[in-house]
């Protein structure tokens, strides 16, 4: 398993495949947490940052989760810790 140091989704370089290491659910409101889950975000999901919105880097982040593209604000993205490298955690989890 190749995995770099964990980093926040906000710090993940664009178009670098990664997977979710940990989500700090307590930092999210119940409904936001539910929505993120419904979008398929969970520990082990593959994630790739695609675009940073806004001119001063304060805008939302668009990222690919599985086959879906979703947009979230930076405060949500900061609650998500990712690891770069190929996605293999999910396979482990399901085995």
């Amino acid at each position, binding site marked *: 398993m190749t995995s770099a140091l964990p980093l926040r989704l906000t710090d993940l370089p664009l178009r670098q495949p990664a997977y979710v290491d940990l989500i700090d659910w307590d930092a999210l409101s119940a*409904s*936001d947490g539910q929505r993120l889950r419904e979008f*398929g975000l969970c520990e082990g999901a593959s994630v790739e940052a*695609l*675009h940073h*919105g806004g001119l001063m880097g304060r805008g939302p982040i668009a990222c690919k989760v599985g086959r879906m593209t979703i*947009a979230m604000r930076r405060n949500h993205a900061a609650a998500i810790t990712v690891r770069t490298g190929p996605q293999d955690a999910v396979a482990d989890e*399901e085995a």
Partner: protein
Amino acid sequence: MTGLPLVALVGNPNAGKSALFNALTGARQKLGNYPGVTVERKAGRLSLSDGRPVELVDLPGTYSLNPTSPDEQVTRDVILGRQAGERLPDALVVVVDASNLDNHLRFALELIALGRPTIVALNMVDLATRDGLELDAQILSRELGVPVISTVAVRKRGLDHLRGELESMLDSGAGDVAPAGERRDFEGLRREARRIARSAIVRETPSRRLTAAVDRVALHPVAGLFLLLALLFIMFQAVYAWSEAPIAMIEGFVASAGDAVTAALPDGLLRSFLVDGVLNGVGSVIVFLPQILILFFFILMLEATGYMVRAAFLMDGLMARVGLSGRAFIPLLSSFACAVPGIMATRTIADPKDRLTTILIAPLMTCSARLPVYAVIIGAFIPARTVALGIGLQGLVLFCLYISGIVGAMLAALVLRRTVTKGASGGFLMEMPKYQWPRPQDIVLGLWQRAVIFLKRAGTIIFTSTVILWILLSFPKAPENGGVSQVNYSIAGRVANGLNVVLQPIGFNRDISLALIPAMAAREVAVSALATVYSLDADEDEAKLERSLGDRLKDSWPLPTALAFLAWFVFAPQCISTIAVTRRETNGWKWPLFMIGYLFALAYVAAGLTYWTATAAGL
């Protein structure tokens, strides 16, 4: 349509549900409301292969049976047979996006577990193929235990197959599988969905997707903003450039109808009522149908192509700065068409303060009812010349008016969020759908529904206000040769002269005061009211009667007054429907009254500043 079997169409947002609904029902749709809630009920009639009708209801898109908004709650309640005013559906058609199976199957599994007769429509198979994904519907069907049918809304084969499957399901009456014993939790459903999705994928090539390529430009912080501004700019130019010919046609039709009535009837009250009240009044509003349809065409296209969410993404930085949720952008953009559906669309915003702020500023977005007012004033006072590079001055002024509304709304939000609707800032969590080329039928159907709504308004609210105004303007009859004009002598004229004391400082004349009262019902009425006033005033002078409303305004208003009038309409809350829907959505009179108060204050100040500045500048 009670008595017919009821089939509910349900699925995730962006599963292509609406296109499928349109393809299955065609133009035979009925829009309504669920009692007690302001969620739209969209139903239509679907014919089975033997011609038997079935009622198909399109439920609001949702991600699970665990609702986070009133829309999603309706979906859950209908499916469970708990929604007032709706019977338990006889069957469910679960729509899933073929290229997003992992996610959509989770909800499908949740629905199948309810044990109701269910068919899964594997939708947008064409887009999945475009993205290099090949699926096996048979494997899916075996794994899910319900029929799975590949559909593409534009192709007939899948639709016929779906109809056939529905037919046998409704005929057998059963299909009512016993609910699955153990109810799986979210995590269990997710894993199961993932496993099934994996098993159904025949081939998956990581093709570089069209969407990703377009997004590199559309979501770029600089290029994307320019693209958005350019799109909006083209939209407002088109409103003028494309509408000339159809407007001339409608004007010609109204004029010839007026001539016919004039020729057929003797001079008198009835003729005045028909020509001055009905034809001139209502006709002056119907003329704007082409422009409104052009505007709606652009908004429908932006929505259907998937661009709207990108625009929300680009604007989110700004929204966050004024304390709004990024979600607020979509209700606000649809308020460009009409604030009523815009305010209803705020139900997707979870945070109450966030939602209230969005409701309060929604009327500042330039709705299509303002278009007739803007168009008539711009047409009369702004010369139709080209500024540069094919950019028309009239379109430019219109663009500026829209921008003023947006800037006003952002400033209002900024102030509101720091005072009356203080609270933590909301979030922005949205799915970005794939780009797709909309089906022409869907756009045409959408335009048709808008046209019907507009003409109904013209036939009811606008017609009634115009008729009442005509009565108030025609009575009591001014004495012959009394030296008092009929308008000044009439009841309406007297009220307007009273109101004018307040409005005179900001450059408004008696006719404007007169038009503003009935325009409380709907903004367009200002135009029909002016048309009626000038039509009655011109009675004695046949030559005047021949001239268009614009020309008459140009003769009787100084430019600063016209500009102040435009500025007034950027802010004034002149729409009974908006006030009513605000009352309904906020459960009381407190907020609608607050909204009326602050918007009228803004309108007064804006019109005043415009008038005084323009006068000082010597315009």
